[in-house]
Each structure stands twice: as structure tokens, then as C-alpha cells.
């Protein structure tokens, strides 16, 4: 069945408006990640789609049919809860079989489906245990098996990998992706973690303060985010305030910067550049001079905090040039890698613009 359309969704708690006119569509078999910082309304959005919250206005369509007023138990969705919500008074087997029991299937059939799904997640030998006897990773799998047993093709995942350590999270991430393609799921996955979003998503819906900021494919979300908030939240960016000279050049602090893409704006603009795109090179244009203030060795890469006229520019590179604190360096911003946004659209209060 599943393609999902969310149209003009609004939801308030008391005087606090959590979702403000949220609309988007999810295609059949698409893996969509809803990304946003905590408190941006993403869990509320998911619960509105599931029918666990009544919406103030707007509608939810599954395959073109309006489901807005349907009861949650009639929507036939698989919902994965943030802290799993495993029933503590039931064994793993009873948990996984709950949706089948609730539908009144007979015992033998339930057992068969439960066994299948427990073996998919590799918990067959734990079926008689209670959730509290399982490790975090196993609880997560048990919860996944419980969702799988619903046979629903449409999955809503609320921060499913959050409470896990990074190693297990990364293993489960790739399993999740494999399973979703194998079973042909349509997925809406909510997370505050941009790496998780980039790894899993076919498309990323970025939410800020209850408003859809941008909807783009995973690659575009990173390489050419539509908004400065996207450039800020997905990956990292240095932001510079500059003045437009013509369609392909701007002036920053008296220095000329070339920009490959069409600027299409006038007056003051906001430039954004990823730390890993900036090079330690000197060119005629697009170059700043600064002094290294701190060096952070991160393993795969090294990160440099560079003082440019009292403000910090971040550069990240995997080449490990032998630079140390106090060295003077030249920073080259390649024209292909400069993103331009209207100055009115500031990414956030906590962002410094250099």
C-alpha cells in the first residue's frame, strides 16, 4: 500500500505550537528520515501520523485515503518507540506476538510468526526471557521483532538507535537499511543524529521549530542544502557575511571571492563552507590568512581552529599536514564548495558568523 501524504499538519500543546503547517509526501518503499534537534517536534509529528495524538488541523493520507480520524489501532502501522516500550510483564515471545494476539490469531500461527521474526533478529534463544534480562541491543532487536511481526509495510521509527553505544548503533543501522530494502518497507525514521540520517535516508526532511525547513535527497542535503539551517545542522559549516558583486563573485572583508553557482541574490549574503572543503593553499582569490589557535586530532581527520581577525574558522582534513598552534596559514575556499544564502535566513542564534 504505502505512500504517505501529510498535509498542513498543526498541533499545539496548550499555548505551545509544536507543529506549524507541516506537509510532505513519502513514496512507496522510500526510507525517509525526519531530522531535527531535540524539541523541534519530530516525535510529535510521528505520533500525529500514527494517530496517537489528535491533530489540531491538517490531514494524513495513506495511499490517497484520509486516515486523519482513524483510530491508531486501525492504521496498521509499525511503530517503533524511542525507549522500545517493551511490556515489562511479558516475555520476549509474548511481546513479539502481541499484535497477533490482539488480532485474535490462533496460538499455533502466532508461535510460527513469532519464531520467524525472532530468528530474523537473532533472539530465538531468548524468547522465554523478560525484557529486563536483555541487554540494550537485544531489547532493541526484540522491539524490532515486535514491529516486524505486525507484517506492516509502513514503519514509523522514533529514534530507534538512540540509547545504544555507537558500535552497536552502527551495526544496527546497516541491518535496518538491509531489512527495509529486503522487505520493501516504507519508513519514516526520526532522529536528531545527522550521520544516522545521511547513512539511512533516501530523503531527509529537516525540521526546525515545528516547520519543515527543507526536503532533499541524502546527497543533496549535504552537498547543496537548500537552507542555511541545513548547511548548519547536516554536517558542519563556516558562515561568512559577504556582499554580492555580480552573479559569481562576492566581496568579503575587502577580499574577492568567486562562487561557481549562480548567486541570484543582491546586497549582503551569507556564505557557507564545509570545514573539510577548505584547503591550506594560497590562490589569487578566495583566500584568507589566519593563525592556528588549536589542533584537535580526531583519528581519521585532524581539525584546526584558525583565528581569522578574532573569529574562528574551522578546517578539517585527513592529510595531517605538520601544522602546530601559532603557525600562520592560508585558507582557500574553492568556488565550487561555497554555498550562498540570503542574510535574512540565519541558521540559528548560537551560530557565529565571521
Amino acid at each position, binding site marked *: 500500500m504505502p505512500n504517505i501524504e501529510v498535509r498542513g499538519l498543526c498541533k499545539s500543546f496548550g499555548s505551545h505550537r509544536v507543529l506549524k503547517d507541516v506537509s510532505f509526501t513519502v513514496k512507496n518503499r522510500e526510507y525517509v528520515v525526519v531530522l531535527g534537534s531535540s524539541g523541534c517536534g519530530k516525535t510529535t509529528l510521528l505520533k500525529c501520523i500514527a494517530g*496517537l495524538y489528535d491533530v489540531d488541523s491538517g490531514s494524513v493520507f495513506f495511499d490517497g485515503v484520509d486516515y486523519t480520524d482513524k483510530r*491508531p*489501532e486501525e492504521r496498521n502501522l509499525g511503530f517503533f*518507540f524511542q525507549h522500545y516500550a517493551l*511490556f515489562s510483564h511479558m516475555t520476549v515471545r509474548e511481546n513479539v506476538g502481541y*499484535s497477533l494476539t490482539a*488480532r*485474535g490469531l490462533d496460538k499455533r500461527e502466532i508461535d510460527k510468526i513469532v519464531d520467524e521474526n525472532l530468528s530474523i533478529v537473532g533472539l530465538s534463544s531468548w524468547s522465554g526471557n523478560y525484557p529486563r534480562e536483555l541487554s540494550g541491543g537485544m531489547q532493541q532487536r526484540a522491539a524490532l521483532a515486535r514491529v516486524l511481526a505486525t507484517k506492516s509495510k509502513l514503519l514509523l521509527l522514533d529514534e530507534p538507535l538512540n540509547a545504544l553505544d555507537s558500535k552497536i548503533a552502527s551495526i544496527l543501522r546497516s541491518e535496518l537499511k538491509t531489512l527495509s530494502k529486503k522487505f520493501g518497507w516504507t519508513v519514516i525514521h526520526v532522529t536528531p543524529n545527522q550521520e544516522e540520517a545521511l547513512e539511512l535516508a533516501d530523503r531527509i526532511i529537516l525540521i526546525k521549530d515545528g516547520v519543515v525547513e527543507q526536503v532533499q535527497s541524502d546527497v543533496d542535503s549535504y552537498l547543496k542544502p537548500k537552507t542555511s539551517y541545513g548547511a548548519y545542522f547536516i554536517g558542519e559549516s563556516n558562515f561568512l557575511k559577504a556582499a554580492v558583486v555580480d552573479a559569481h563573485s562576492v566581496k568579503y572583508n575587502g577580499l574577492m571571492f568567486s562562487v561557481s553557482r549562480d548567486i541570484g541574490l543582491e546586497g549582503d549574503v551569507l556564505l557557507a563552507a564545509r570545514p573539510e572543503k577548505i584547503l591550506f593553499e594560497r590562490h589569487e582569490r578566495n583566500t584568507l590568512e589566519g593563525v592556528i589557535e588549536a589542533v584537535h586530532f580526531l583519528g581519521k581527520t585532524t581539525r584546526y581552529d584558525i583565528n581569522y581577525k578574532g573569529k574562528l574558522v574551522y578546517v578539517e582534513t585527513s592529510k595531517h599536514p605538520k601544522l602546530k598552534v601559532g603557525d600562520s596559514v592560508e585558507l582557500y575556499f574553492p568556488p565550487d564548495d561555497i554555498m550562498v544564502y540570503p542574510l535574512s535566513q540565519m541558521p540559528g542564534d548560537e551560530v557565529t558568523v565571521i
Partner: protein
Amino acid sequence: MVSGLGLKRWGKTQIICLIALLFFIFVIFLPPVYVLSYAFKSSFVLNESSKIALFNSLLIGGVVTIFDLLLGLPVAWVLAKRKHMHFRFLIDTLIDMPLVVPTSILGLSVFYFWNDGMGSLLGLEGGLISKGPLLITLLHFVFTFPYVVRSIEAAILQIDATHEQAATMLGASPLTVFRTISLPLFKAGLISGAILAYTRSLSETGATMMVSGFYSTAPTIVVDYKTAGDIHSAAAISVVLIGIAVILLVLTKLLSASFRVPMSTVWPSEERMLSRKYVKARDILVSLLVFLVILLPTFYIVLSRLDVVKPETILALAGDSMILESIFVSFVVGLIVTAVNLMLAIPLGILISKNMFKLGNLVDTMGDVILLVPTSALGLSLSLFWKNFSLNEFLVLVLAHLSFTFPLMVKPIAASLTGVDPHLEDAARTLGANSRKVFRTIVYPLIKPGILAGLIMTFMRSLSETGATMSVSGKIKTIPVLLVELFNKGGMDDNAVLACITLFAVSFAFILALKKQEVNNAQH
């Protein structure tokens, strides 16, 4: 290992706690259970009328508890789940009223409602329901109901709502979710509420005496025996009552651990239908019953006899030295008892919450036992105990009240002390505060709601207790005792009714204060 108040060393805290503990054991705990020593006397027999009275009590308790659960469950559910309901604060407060209104006044109100009130409404000469088992049941239903609602509501509030949401997303209808997820998770609250209601019904004395007529329950027969001077029969049935109470306490702990609600089978279509079709009918029925059987009888005395609140009767009451004196005695005893218990409950609350000397659990359970001892048995025990020391009557009254109110004070204080994160205390210590300063600046502000709850409950219980007070009082009478006596002698004049209404108003003011405090806490 978090040390909290720095219990590695013996300090002032420890010594104060130890003194409080000794006082607790010898003055608070021992007197109520003193009667148990009669179990070992050769004269220990349960005669025929005691057995009948005991059976009556057990039966009434059972019937009352079943109806409490049937009606209390939906009420608790609605209170727990609909936090933004209209008039929620009012409903919440009204349901708690029978907890704080002195039971003797409740007895009077319930009697007037079902006898005179409904009688004259239906044109019946002798009243609708006369004194006897049915009226006792209706009365017990009124004052046990809040216990059941509160226990269940508290347990429901503990449930993580995402569990219920998860079950919903897995396709379960509301009834199925309730039966297979919610109920198993709050069954402990259900069981403890039921036991509380049952033991309370088993032990209530004063009000029951007003509506029992010639019918005897175990507590009323204790009073009868004692009045007739038959201490041995009174002691025997008291021992049995205490025994039952303790067995029930143990059963609660065992039951709530092992009791499993059947849930392996679900009837999806039937349950789905039930979840929708009859919900409205159920809500209307429950509201009607609560209104008719709980609220209206509780408030009837105020609603029907407001005519006595006028200048003449107030002046008459002011001249009625007997009633005034009783009211005065009640308030003085209440205040003394509250003050002494507070001083005692803070060190003992600390002892319980920190499990000091490894005695925390024991002291806590001892408190539970006092709560469970039926009040007339408790009164008998207290009077037998304090008779051994020829003390002044007023002092005995105060000591008796200290005993049965103490658990009400220490429970909320210990609970809020347990809720204080020990890291906060440690943090304050590392910031240079000594233990007194830690208590004053960190602990005290955090446990203030618990202290307030304890203060109000202690004072109200002291003000309203009838059964045990009767057993220890001779010439000095508290107001509930006087009211029961006046009522049974047929001497309820306007002055007495006005006194009832006054006490009712005081109770209402206290419960409002308590509720406001709760609401404020919830907001912080």
C-alpha cells in the same frame, strides 16, 4: 556508594534518630499491640456472638470492597488519564472528602440521607433504609471509596504511557490495551487499594455504631464488651482482628508479586465493540452512582441542614459548654499530637529513608501494622496498656492519638525523603555545608510537601477518630465521641448539627489546602 547524610560516622543525627526510635517503640508502637499479650491468657475464647459479629464484619468488608473496585476503577482511570478534564480539581477534591470528614459526621450524614432524606423523598414514614447491615454497607462504601480510587489512580499514573501507545500501535483496541497492558502494570495498586478498603471497613467503629442499630460488627462488639466490663471477650476478638489485618498485609505483598491477570487470549471484535459502544453508558452510570452513593450522602448533612446556620443557633452553640468543651479538647489534642509527631517523624523518616541501623524496613512495617490495627481493638489495647501507669486522662488521650496518627505523619515524610536525590546532599556537602545546613537548605525545601501532607492528615485524623478515642476517654470527650453519644441517645439538637457542619467546613478547608499544595507541586 552514595553516603547521603554522611552516615559513616556517628553524629548528632544518629543520636537523635536513636532517641526517636526508642520513643517510637515504647510509646507509639507497643501500646496499640499490647492487647496481643491477651492471646496467651487462658481466658482466650471467642464466644458465639463474637463469631457472628466477626462474620458480619468480614462479609460487609467483602461486599464493600467489591463495589469499591467496580466503581473505583473507572473513576481512578478517568482521573489518571484525563488530566485536562473540566472541573477536575473539584471532582478530585470532592472524592477525597470522605477521607478527612470525621467518620462520625459521615455516619450521621449517611444515616440522614438514606433514612430521612430518601424516605421523605419517596414518602416513606419510617425512612428508606433503617439502621442495620445495609446502611452499614452504604456507610462503609462512602469512606473506603477514596482509598481505592487513590491507590489505583497513583498506580495508573506510574505506568509509562508509551507502553499503552505501543499496544495500540500493535493493533489492540482500548479495552484490550487496558486488560493486557495497563491492568497487569497497576495491579499492585489495585490490590493494595482493595486491602486498604477492606481493613478500613473491618475496623471502623464510631460511625458504624451510629448506623448499626441492634446489628453487631466486630468493632462495635468490642465497644459493647468493654462498656459491659467484659475485657476478656473484647481482647479476644481484638486479637483476632489484628491477626486478620496482619495476614492481609502479608497477603498483599505476596499477591501483588504472583497474581497474574489472564491475558493470553483476546477476543478482538468483541473487545473492539465494547471499547466503543458502551463507554458513554458506562461513564454516565459511574458518574450517577458516585454522585448518588458517595457524594450526596457525604454532603447531605450540610446540604439539608444549612437552616441551622443562623445567628440564634450560633449564639446557642456558644452557650453550649458541653459541645464547646469537646471541640476545644479535640483541637488541643490535635495540635499537640501533630506537633509531637512532627518532631518524631522527621528523625524517624530519615531513619527509614536511609535504612539507618538497617532498621528502616522494620520501622516502616511497624507503622503499617499500627495503621491496620482496627481502631476499637487499638483503643482497647491503648486503654489496657496505659491503665498500667496511673496517668491523667488527658495525657492518655494524647498518647493514644500519638499512636494511631504517627504512621500518617511518618509515611509521607519518609516517602519524600526517599525521593530526595542523595547526590544533591553530597553536592551540598562538597560545597561546604554541614549536615544541619544541608537539611535546612536542601532537604527541607524538597520534603516540605510531604511534611505538609503529614501535618494535615495527622491533624484531621486526630480530630475525627472515634472508635479508639472512645475506648480511652472517660469524662473528657472529643467532639466525634460526643456526637456519637448524643446521636445514640437521640439528643442530636441543632447545636450538635451546627457543630457537625462547622467540623465539615474545617475538613473542607484542610483538604483544599492539601490539594492546592499538590497542584502547586505538580506545576513546579
